């Protein structure tokens, strides 16, 4: 009788199959994913049934949870079968696991880049904090946020409140002789709100442009910033001026779509 890879790992770690099934069922309930029955697990363990993508996912999760070891699906299952098809299944599992692990990081990176710019702008323009120090303050705020993310309910509001307090504290420490201006002390006033909205818009447009494809971004840069003619851009791209016009329309449309999605996320 062939001993499956899953069975080998279970034996090496001295685990009980029932323990794994129970943990898998608990995780499945928590993650709202399909669970696995005791019988089905037995069949997978003994090689009498091939595990589906969902079953592999939940068994790997249960094994990670019970042992604290970061098992990969390929540590427990043969994921390179001779025929095609199953390869896609393996990829599906990998993608699913990778996307869960990296999703939070991606979101945090966007948060850092998009709001980081806004927070630096607030520190520099409203509180006159020098650029390097503003960047350090913003970094400290994100570090503080990471420790508190479980109970911060409105990220945007929290970050803006945090930069206000961090900047005021900076001014007090660096220039004890200088008094805070009324605009620093007032948490919310219409003028400040408007200014922050303006900076927010600027940060959103910047984030949008950084996400736009290279071709679109460079075409927009040439056309709007460098004020190159459509003929000059066409020559650079080795295409016709009519195509450049078409490209500009498409890129602006795409830009608007990204702006909308960014604004929705920030609201």
């Amino acid at each position, binding site marked *: 009788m062939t001993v499956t890879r899953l069975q080998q790992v279970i034996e090496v770690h001295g685990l009980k199959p029932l323990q794994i099934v129970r*943990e898998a069922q*608990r995780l499945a309930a928590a993650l709202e994913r399909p669970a696995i029955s005791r019988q089905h697990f037995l069949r997978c363990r003994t090689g009498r049934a091939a595990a589906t993508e969902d079953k592999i996912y939940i068994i790997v999760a249960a094994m*990670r*949870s019970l042992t*604290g070891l970061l098992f990969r699906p390929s540590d427990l299952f043969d994921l390179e079968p001779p025929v095609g098809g199953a390869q896609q299944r393996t990829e599906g599992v990998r993608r699913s696991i990778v996307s869960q692990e990296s999703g*939070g*990081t991606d979101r*945090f*990176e966007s948060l*850092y*880049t998009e709001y*980081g*710019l806004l927070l630096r702008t607030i520190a520099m323009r409203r509180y006159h904090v020098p650029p390097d120090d503003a*960047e350090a*303050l913003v*970094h*400290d*705020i*994100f*570090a*503080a*946020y*990471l*420790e*508190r993310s*479980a*109970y*911060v*309910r*409105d990220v945007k*509001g*929290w970050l*803006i*409140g*945090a*930069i*206000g*307090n*961090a900047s005021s*504290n*900076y001014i007090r420490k660096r220039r004890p002789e200088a008094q805070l201006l009324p605009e620093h002390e007032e*948490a*919310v006033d219409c003028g400040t709100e408007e200014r922050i909205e303006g900076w927010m*818009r*600027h*940060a959103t*447009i*910047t984030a949008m*442009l*950084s996400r736009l494809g290279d071709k679109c*971004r460079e075409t*927009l*840069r040439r056309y*709007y*910033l460098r004020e190159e003619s459509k003929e000059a851009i066409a020559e650079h791209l080795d295409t016709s001026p009519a195509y450049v016009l078409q490209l500009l329309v498409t890129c602006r449309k795409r*830009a*608007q779509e990204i*702006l*909308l999605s960014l*604004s929705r996320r920030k609201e």
Partner: protein
Amino acid sequence: MKRYDEAKFEEALRDAKTWEAVDALRSRPARLQEALALKERIDSEDAAAARLLSPLLRSPLRFRNAAVAQNPKAQTAGVVRFLCAAANKRHEKRPEFSLELTLCAHEIAQSLGQRFCMALSLRERANALRYLGRFTEALEALDAAEEMFDESPAADPHDVAIVNYIRATVFVEIERLDEACSLSRKAADVFREYGDRPRERAALMSEATSLHFSGRNSEAVRVYVRVVAQARSDGDRMLLAHALNNAATAYIELQEFDEAESSLIEALVIFDELHLATEKARVVWSLALVQVRRGDLADGAVRLDAARRELEGLKLVNDHALATLDWAFARLALGEPAGVVGACERIVVRFESEGMMKSARIALAHLHEALATGSATPSLVSEIRTFLAHLPAHPNAPFIFSAGS
């Protein structure tokens, strides 16, 4: 669908600063790499904590037997954060267990020597103690927590505001109402500064409650109205209904019965939509009381009779007792005492301490005796009702009959 203003969009595209910022963003600065590394470390700590602790949280016994604080693998900030979050979820239903979790978190935080972790665990411990009614210890824990939130000028004000909010709710419980009011207000201001609307509303509710309990009903109404407006605009239906209900109680004391009635009717509709039968029954009871306070005793008595039966059906024994006394008051005031003796004989109250039960029994015995001898008056019933209603807040108060004296 919202579109960006074309003119502003083009203006930004023509601005060199926009493009400088774009290039800076695309270069992934070193600080971003540092932040991502920190995030990765925190995520991995949190994941390890979840793996270690999730199976242990299924029962207090299992958790206790695991001696988590002594486990070398548990000596991480992630474990402290996880335990505090787990405690926070359990305060309402299992405060004893949540206290145990926070004690373990604090022990680990102390051995790590991290002030933020210590502060976090002390704050959560205070929360657990508050739910357990151990108010002096809760205040001590809050004082210690506040001192330790001193490492991040950016985040400390928000962290301390949460401490102040918890402290204010403790002060309401122990009737240090002026302090509760000013602390709630202070906390609400900070929450507003940090865009934390749910906590701001909670702090406003605490401020309104402390004003209300101090008898400053006009001021209480003003704050409740602010909470109502915020809850309405944020779509927080549960809080909206509670704020309307509380505002109605303050309106009743101000004898503004039309306002009270309209607030109660709106609260009733929302509680009905939310399928909160007990809250709905209490609002029906309040509407009947408005009727009585308006002087419409006959109609009020009919409504109170229906309300008290509904409360009895829902097994809300103390509410049923108070509603029955309200009904008895109306019947005696109408000069129609039929049925009052029987209804009052069926009154049952339930309090946690034996001392409170004893006081309640003495008060009720006084009522039964007066009803049996035909000497019961509406003012006696009203006095006993007030005594029973205030007993949880004044557990050591003896019943002293003063009506007619």
